[in-house]
């Protein structure tokens, strides 16, 4: 009967138990505390397809919690969809998720992402950069599909560590 150990924490602890030198488990993955990186909202007013919402600017090496970071919205109107990413990779986090129905909450990071990217990758890698861009990364939500109604609220919470 095999017992599988996690890559971030389990295997590192086992290697310590096997006599490897101290060092290893990141506080990102064990006994650390996430912060509220951003908790914010906007209200639509005269917006059109292609408009952007600035969700926050982070270090390229920031760690965003893949499960708790979320995005909520009012009904934005028939046919409206949202993409989440940054300027260079506009659909990396979410592609065309429908935003016509009110009071939805979605986790911000595409949940079918490969495990290593989803759980153990810095922001730049998760977005699809081949190397850290060397400048802060501004996360953006892109309004697509149709022009949104006025007065609709978009809100988001991003948890993690801006390391």
């Amino acid at each position, binding site marked *: 009967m095999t017992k599988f150990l996690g890559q971030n*924490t389990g295997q590192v602890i086992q290697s310590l138990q096997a006599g490897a030198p101290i060092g290893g488990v990141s506080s990102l993955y064990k006994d650390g505390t996430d912060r509220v990186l951003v908790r914010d909202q906007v209200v639509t007013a005269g917006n059109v397809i292609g408009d952007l919402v600035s969700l926050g600017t982070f270090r390229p090496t920031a760690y965003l919690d893949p*499960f708790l970071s979320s995005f909520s919205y009012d009904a934005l109107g028939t046919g409206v969809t949202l993409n989440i990413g940054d300027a260079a990779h506009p659909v990396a986090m979410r592609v065309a998720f429908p935003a016509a129905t009110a009071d939805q909450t979605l986790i911000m990071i595409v949940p*079918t992402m490969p495990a290593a990217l989803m759980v153990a990758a810095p922001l730049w890698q998760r977005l699809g950069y081949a190397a850290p861009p060397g400048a802060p990364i501004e996360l953006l939500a892109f309004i697509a599909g149709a022009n949104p109604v006025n007065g609709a609220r978009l809100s988001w919470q991003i948890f993690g560590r801006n390391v």
Partner: protein
Amino acid sequence: MAKLYGNLVGSQVQALAQGRIGIVPPHCKDTPDQVLWRDYAVFQGAAVGDTISMGVLKSTALVDPLNSVIANDAMTGVRWDLGDVSFPTAFAAALNVEWGQTVPLVAAMKANLVAAPLWQLLGYLADPGRPIELLARIAAASTAPPANGTAFIWALYGRAGL
């Protein structure tokens, strides 16, 4: 019109407001949860009945039962038991997790266990007085084990315990 105060925080704060000593449990108010364990395991030659070590925690750890989640890559016919060695299905039995879905660690939350120590959450009658290793087991109900290279993903949030 009655006003009800919470058992853990509200009634203690009320007591203080009335000049009596009330002690709010340290993990129930104004305190940040910790990342207890955020990890993923990749399968190689897995078989039904194999386990994943989800973390070794203090028996008094407060594992947030609602925010702590599991997920997995696309896999067919795989079901999960979630618990520990003594109570292997305490949190979930033969759980199916679709690709792209995140599922709470505790499948059916009992309201009286929202702020329970891990030993109680699992079903122990008393604190076993030793660390507890949480396990995900490839359930007997699985029609196939996870394919090579696929991953099981989990994040446990809460407080490390006293």
